[in-house]
């Protein structure tokens, strides 16, 4: 058996909702059935085979080839299997993901890992705004799982994030960890302005002091040796990421905030 592959054969002018194309929904379906699935594109629908060339037969392992940033909702509500995307993807990659793995070789648009529950997403590129966040009007972002970004992230990374882990090998944009409820965001590079605005709980682990400093809403709690850090860093070893190669450390400078709110969040800066 070979991976079920969807090769985009058109230059999409409208956004394509790819939510029906997950291992869960395609299991036990024939290629003929899959080809006949109607996808929402703009305000119309089109058959899968009018947008993609299909090959392969293993629906537990799906590939999108020649992908563009018009492909939205890839991995929607997925609970098992894997999806590999070659190219950029649109919004809401891995929304409600509850198991399985998604890997993208390219950049993702807004709301990647939105309200994700478990599983793993790896983006070999940059991610847009609101990664791991909640849908507009919702109060809980991702509640579990791991997201790895080899590049940079946009604004409001981990907005309303409740649990889980976001690992950013590059830089994080403005308002990182804003309104964060819990969970862990780790950044190897720099972080933009307004880090942790409205943060309630949770941990932001930084490899270096942000070039724009820590906001006044966070109080310096001093330098400390924290026993959980070696455990956390050791847990990174199993990941396909730069985080797997960082030396174990436990010495950090701790900042607590956002003190305009309940102030139970923390920014830990390696020292």
């Amino acid at each position: 058996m070979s991976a079920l592959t969807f090769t985009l054969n058109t230059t999409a002018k409208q956004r394509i909702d790819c939510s029906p194309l997950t291992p869960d929904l395609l299991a036990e379906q024939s290629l003929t059935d899959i080809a006949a699935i109607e996808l929402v594109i703009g305000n119309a629908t089109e058959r899968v085979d009018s947008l993609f060339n299909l090959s392969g037969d293993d629906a537990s392992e799906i590939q999108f080839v020649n992908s563009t940033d018009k492909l939205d909702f890839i991995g929607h509500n997925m609970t098992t299997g894997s999806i590999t995307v070659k190219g950029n993807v649109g919004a809401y990659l891995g929304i409600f993901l509850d198991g399985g793995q998604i890997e993208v070789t390219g950049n993702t648009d807004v709301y990647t890992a939105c309200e994700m529950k478990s599983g793993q997403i790896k983006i070999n590129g940059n991610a847009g705004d609101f990664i791991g966040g909640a849908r507009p009007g919702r109060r809980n972002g991702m509640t579990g799982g791991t997201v790895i970004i080899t590049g940079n992230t946009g604004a409001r990374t981990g907005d309303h994030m409740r649990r889980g882990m976001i690992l950013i090998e590059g830089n994080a944009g403005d308002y990182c960890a804003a309104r964060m409820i819990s969970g862990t965001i780790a950044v190897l590079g720099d972080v933009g302005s307004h880090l942790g605005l409205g943060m309630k709980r949770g941990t932001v682990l930084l490899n270096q002091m942000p070039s724009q400093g820590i906001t006044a809403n966070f109080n310096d709690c001093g330098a400390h040796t924290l026993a959980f850090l070696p455990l956390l860093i050791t847990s990174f070893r199993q990941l396909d990421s730069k985080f797997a190669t960082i030396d174990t450390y436990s010495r950090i400078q701790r900042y607590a905030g956002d003190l305009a709110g309940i102030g139970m969040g923390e920014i830990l800066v390696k020292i």
Partner: protein
Amino acid sequence: MIINGVIIDETFAEAFPMKGTRLIITALNAKWAMISAQAFTGFATSVIACGCEAGIERELDPSETPDGRPGVSILIFAMGGKSLAKQVETRSGQCVLTSPTSALFSGLEGETEIALGQNLRYFGDGFQISKMIDGKRYWRIPVMDGEFLTQEKTGVQAAVGGGNFLVLAESQAQALAACEAAIVEMRKCPNVIMPFPGGVVRSGSKVGSKFKALNASTNDAFCPTLKGQTNSDLSPEVESVMEIVIDGLTKEDIDKAMKVGIQAVCDLGAANGIRRISAGNYGGKLGPFHFHLQEIMA
């Protein structure tokens, strides 16, 4: 059966089912990990009055502990899951949380789970922080020396308590020396503890008493000073009897520990005043686990 001049009685030790868990205590150095472990396992010799039986399994190298610091592995046993949970919680709170630089982890993936730091976290008064790492929840509780890190739960498994054997010697000193030799070897066995002081009991008990308030009393048949007063099990030359009690995660673990312990005693042999090895049982009515001495040593 006779080994090196020591008679191995044709009898068996009788043991009973318990629930057990393993905990790992780490600290800044081995000294403080051991201090915390000793506090945790203190006053835990017998479920009769202590509520649990606990002991130090072994010291752990930093490479063997979750946080890469020196540690100590301890085993704790109780008659049921609820009583075990209560003992784990109170001892963790009073003996590990309070111990400088300590951290506390589960050392057992069991059939069921009980709280470890799940309730201790409230000591943090709202400042405690939860962290999920590799699917396991940990609690970081701010304390005056920094942070106390503890895993939320620990596994529990069915275990065996009350494995034992008796060392019958010509003198107190010889009985003690033989037991010390046995304990040295038995402590090399994984998954077992010898919960009594130094691993040795000098006051073995029988079930029942002439006093209604007591459900156990001295094992007069093995008390050398009562040889002329009671239905003694001792020959004239035996002047001292000591017992080693073993709790283990499985019957097989206790089998192995008893074998190496009895062998260590027999290695000293009759030349060092060791006369007999026997065991405590209650006619097979108390517990389902029977450790037949001659089968173990065969």
